[in-house]
Structure formats: structure tokens, C-alpha cells
């Protein structure tokens, strides 16, 4: 629509411009016509004078022929001229000229009449120089008129040129506008096309998201089934291995050598380790897809409970120092419990041999979050391993020196991230490690 309107506007501008140009043309044509008519008038006057002189000199009637024609022609030329002229100044000049022409014609007629009586009476009139003076006057006025008309012509040509320029400019602008409107049209069409394309793309994207969501939920269902299969079918034979080994030791242990008993215990220990590995994989997998509902959780209670659990499974024991209060965070209870348990378990496990782990748990406020740090006096982590240590199944040490599945810290990271937090590791002042995680402070915490 805009493009069409612009086109119509430019067309209108061109028409107006051309009309103005045509008007200018007719003005120039009239000037040329006036100049021609003025020249005609002068020619007729000259013809009258020429005829009169011929008649005066010869006295022959046939010399009067141009005079007679001119007598008829002069008033006609004059009237043509006054009809053509529109410029007020020129009209005034013509009116000024009229009595002189009439006087001239009267003088000519007088001399012609006197010549009928003889040459001398006519020559007397001629010798008064009245006729000559009239002619000079008439020529002067006509020259004046012609000059003025020339000036007008110049003005009109200039005006015409202006109009031409204006028309050219208008035409140029029209052309430009047309090009612009064409470009605008192209742009609008392109815009429309690209918006149509955008709609197509977004529809396709929606479709793909939908399809992927369906595939994802299918994958999740499969994962659930897979996890169930692992937890049940994989652990059943382990239970059997472990059970038979223990049963054999209990029932027939007295008949076995020390080495045989050692083998039995190795079977049982391997089964226990494999069971722990399966538990951790399941926990890690569950963390990826379970919806974690966050509620306010007191960190001190969680740390104390986790420490009891760690002590229950650790024969060497560990000392823990809690710098309370630790605060309250928004977390999923079981996941928070597992995260803290894994950190404390790590801290109590990775100590130099024949040493008791000393663990310090502290917290500090970081904006709207609370950062809990678990610091140990253990073997520490080399800087180049600090990133990889949070990846699943990454082990920096052999199972013989430090038992574990290599999933503990991966569970920590995934758990903390699923609860909207972050975790990290830095060297502790005493040479050990300082693991930390951050979670949003509970709203009650805000009020304190």
C-alpha cells in the first residue's frame, strides 16, 4: 500500500512538472511571436515610406502599390501586436507608439496628396523633417519595445529553465521515490517472507522440541527401567556371591586354611565394593532426573547426621569441628544429606596413612547464598586435578590405597547443581583440601 501510494505521488509530481514546462514553452513561443509581429509592423511602416518616396520621386502611380498595401497592413499589424502583448510595460509602450504611427501615416498621406499637385509642395512637407522625426521616434520606441521583449524573453527562458530544472528535479525525485518504493516493496516482501520463514522455523522448532521431549521422556522411562534392572538383577547375584562366601566361612571356616579363608573374604569384599558402586551409579542417575523440591534445611543438623553415618562406616575414626552456626539453606533434604556425607567421607578417607582425619566445617554468607566449606588435613589435590576430580569415575589413587567408587564428588557436583548451587575446591592452609558448596539461603535466614 505504501509503495503504491508513493508511486501515485511520484506520478502526480511528474504530471505537474510537465504541465509547468508546457506553460513555460507557450510563454517563450508568444514572445517570439510578439517580436515577429513587431518586426512586421516596422516592415509595413518601412514599406509605406518606401512606396511614398518612390511616388514622390517619380510621380508614377505604380510606386504607390507598396504604400497602399502597407496602409491596410499597418493597423492590422498594430492590432495583432496589442492582442499578443500581455506584459503591462509593453502594452504601455504600444499605446505610446500609436499616436506616432497615426501621425506618420497622416504625414505620408499628406505628402502623397500634395504630390498630386506637384513635386515641390510635397517636398516642402518632407523638408520640414517632421516625417523623419516621427520615423526616428517610432523606430526608437519599437527598438525599446524589442529590447524589453528580449529582456522578457530572457526572463521567460530562465523561468522555463527553472521549471525545467524543477521538473527534472521532480522527475529525479520521482524516480528516486519510485526506486525507494520499489526497494521498500522488495524489503517488505522480503520482510514478510522472512517473517513467514521465521514462523516456519519456530513451528519446526516447536515440533522438534515436542518430539525431543517425547523421546526424552521415553528415554527417561527406559532409564528408570534400566535403573530398576540394575538395582535388582545386578545385585541379586552379588548378594548370592557375598552370601555364599560368608556362609562358607561360617559353616566350613574351621576346615579351611588361612589362605582359603582369605580368598573367601576377598570374594565378599569384592561383592561389597561392587554393591557400593551400583548404589552410587543409581544415586547419580536418580539425581539427573528426579524433581528436587527445595525446602529450608538446617546445615548443622545435616552435618551432624552425616558425620554419624561416616563414623559408623569408618574404623579409623575422625575428628570434626563445626564452627556453628552454619545457617539454613534451601535444599532437597536427602540430596543435601548425601552431598554432605560424601564430602565428610572424602575428608575422613583421604588422609596420610596412620593419621586421623581432622575436619573443620564452617560456613559464611555470600550475598543471598550460604557457602559451606569442609576443610581437611588430608593428602590434598594437585592443581591440575582440581577440575577432573568432580567428573564421574575419576580416581586419582588406586583402590588399594583409598577405597571408593569415584562417583562421590560427581554426586556432590550434580546434587548441588540440581539444587541451583555451585561447588568447588581450593587448597587448605594446612596442606589439605577445602571443598565448598554454595546454596541459596532460606528465607528465614534473610530475616536474621
Amino acid at each position: 500500500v505504501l509503495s503504491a501510494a508513493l508511486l501515485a505521488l511520484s506520478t502526480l509530481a511528474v504530471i505537474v512538472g510537465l504541465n509547468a514546462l508546457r506553460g513555460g514553452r507557450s510563454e517563450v513561443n508568444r514572445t517570439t511571436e510578439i517580436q515577429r509581429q513587431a518586426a512586421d509592423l516596422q516592415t509595413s511602416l518601412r514599406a509605406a515610406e518606401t512606396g511614398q518616396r518612390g511616388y514622390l520621386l517619380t510621380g508614377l502611380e505604380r510606386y504607390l502599390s507598396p504604400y497602399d498595401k502597407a496602409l491596410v497592413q499597418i493597423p492590422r499589424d498594430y492590432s495583432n501586436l496589442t492582442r499578443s502583448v500581455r506584459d503591462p510595460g509593453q502594452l504601455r509602450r504600444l499605446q505610446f507608439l500609436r499616436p506616432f504611427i497615426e501621425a506618420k501615416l497622416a504625414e505620408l498621406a499628406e505628402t502623397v496628396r500634395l504630390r498630386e499637385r506637384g513635386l515641390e509642395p510635397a517636398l516642402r512637407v518632407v523638408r520640414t523633417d517632421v516625417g523623419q522625426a516621427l520615423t526616428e521616434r517610432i523606430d526608437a520606441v519599437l527598438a525599446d519595445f524589442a529590447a524589453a521583449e528580449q529582456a522578457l524573453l530572457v526572463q521567460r527562458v530562465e523561468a522555463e529553465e527553472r521549471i525545467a530544472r524543477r521538473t527534472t528535479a521532480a522527475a529525479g525525485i520521482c524516480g528516486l521515490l519510485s526506486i525507494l518504493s520499489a526497494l521498500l516493496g522488495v524489503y517488505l516482501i522480503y520482510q514478510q517472507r522472512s517473517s513467514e520463514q521465521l514462523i516456519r522455523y519456530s513451528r519446526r522448532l516447536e515440533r522438534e522440541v515436542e518430539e525431543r521431549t517425547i523421546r526424552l521422556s521415553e528415554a527417561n522411562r527406559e532409564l528408570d527401567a534400566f535403573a530398576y534392572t540394575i538395582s535388582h538383577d545386578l545385585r541379586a547375584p552379588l548378594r548370592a556371591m557375598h552370601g555364599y562366601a560368608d556362609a562358607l566361612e561360617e559353616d566350613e571356616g574351621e576346615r579351611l586354611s588361612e589362605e582359603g579363608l582369605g580368598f573367601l573374604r576377598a570374594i565378599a569384599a569384592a561383592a561389597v565394593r561392587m554393591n557400593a558402586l551400583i548404589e552410587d551409579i543409581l544415586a547419580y542417575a536418580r539425581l539427573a532426573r528426579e524433581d528436587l523440591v527445595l525446602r529450608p534445611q538446617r546445615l548443622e543438623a545435616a552435618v551432624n547426621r552425616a558425620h554419624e553415618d561416616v563414623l559408623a562406616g569408618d574404623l579409623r575414626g575422625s575428628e570434626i569441628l563445626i564452627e556453628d552456626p552454619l545457617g539454613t539453606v534451601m535444599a532437597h533434604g536427602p540430596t543435601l544429606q548425601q552431598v554432605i556425607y560424601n564430602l565428610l567421607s572424602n575428608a575422613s578417607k583421604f588422609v596420610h596413612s596412620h593419621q586421623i582425619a581432622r575436619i573443620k566445617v564452617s560456613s559464611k554468607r555470600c550475598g543471598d547464598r550460604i557457602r559451606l566449606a569442609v576443610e581437611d588435613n588430608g593428602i590434598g589435590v594437585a592443581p591440575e586435578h582440581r577440575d577432573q576430580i568432580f567428573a564421574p569415575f575419576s580416581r586419582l589413587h588406586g583402590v588399594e590405597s583409598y577405597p571408593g567408587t569415584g562417583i562421590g564428588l560427581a554426586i556432590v557436583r550434580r546434587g548441588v547443581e540440581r539444587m541451583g548451587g555451585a561447588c568447588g575446591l581450593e587448597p587448605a592452609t594446612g596442606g589439605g583440601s577445602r571443598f565448598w558448596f554454595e546454596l541459596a539461603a532460606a528465607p528465614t535466614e534473610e530475616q536474621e
Partner: protein
Amino acid sequence: MTEAVEMLVVEDDPHDLALLRRAMRRASVDVGYDVASDGDEAVTWLERVLAMDSLPRVVLLDLKLPRRSGFDVLAWMKSHDKLRRIPVVIFTSSNVGTDLDRAYDLGANSYLVKPATPSDLVAMVAQIDSYWLGVNRIR
């Protein structure tokens, strides 16, 4: 099939069953029991003893079973006029919370996770005996 059958054990895993038998010997649990190795067998067995009017004192029921699952057997029993009063002890390797909730919703009387070691299993069998069967013995 003796008249002394006091417990039905529904268990498909021969190793679990073997360790359970050993645990019962070790715990000196002297009860007559029969074994059904899948859900269908359990239902058939229960229908037969129902017809003979000699119901067991307790059913030890695994959840993951071939053909008919433990949940189905449980639901069938608990909606049955004559069978719904028989205590059902779920005995499973599943420690998944949803399984526990579902079992109790369907009317399970106890939910025990299979222990990792034989000695723990012995202790558990002793508990089952004293709690679910001992009352009967006192009487």
C-alpha cells in the same frame, strides 16, 4: 504338602532361597513352609490350600517375580474375602521408596529389604519367626 505348612515363601531366585533355607536352619526356625517360584504358582498354591481350609500363618513375598508380580499377588490376596487377613511380609531387594509406598498402599503388613550378609539374614529370619509365627506358638 503337609498339614504343618505355616508359611508360604514366594521367591524366584534359587540363591536367595538357598541362603534363606540356611538362615532358617541357623536361626533354628522350625516351621513347615512351601515355596512358590513365581506369582502364578503362588496364586495356584493359595487357591488350593483355601479349598483345603488350611491357610498359612504368613506369606513371605518377593516383589520382582516372573509371570505375575509380587504386587499383583498382594493386591489379589488383599481383595480376597478369605485371604486378606493372612499377614504378607514383603521380602525384596528393592530399597526404592515408591515400591515401599505401593506395597503398603496395597495392604502389605511388613516390608523387609534382603540383607547384604548371611548373618544379617539369620537375624532377620529369627525376627520374622518371633513376630509373625511366635504368637501362634504361644497359643
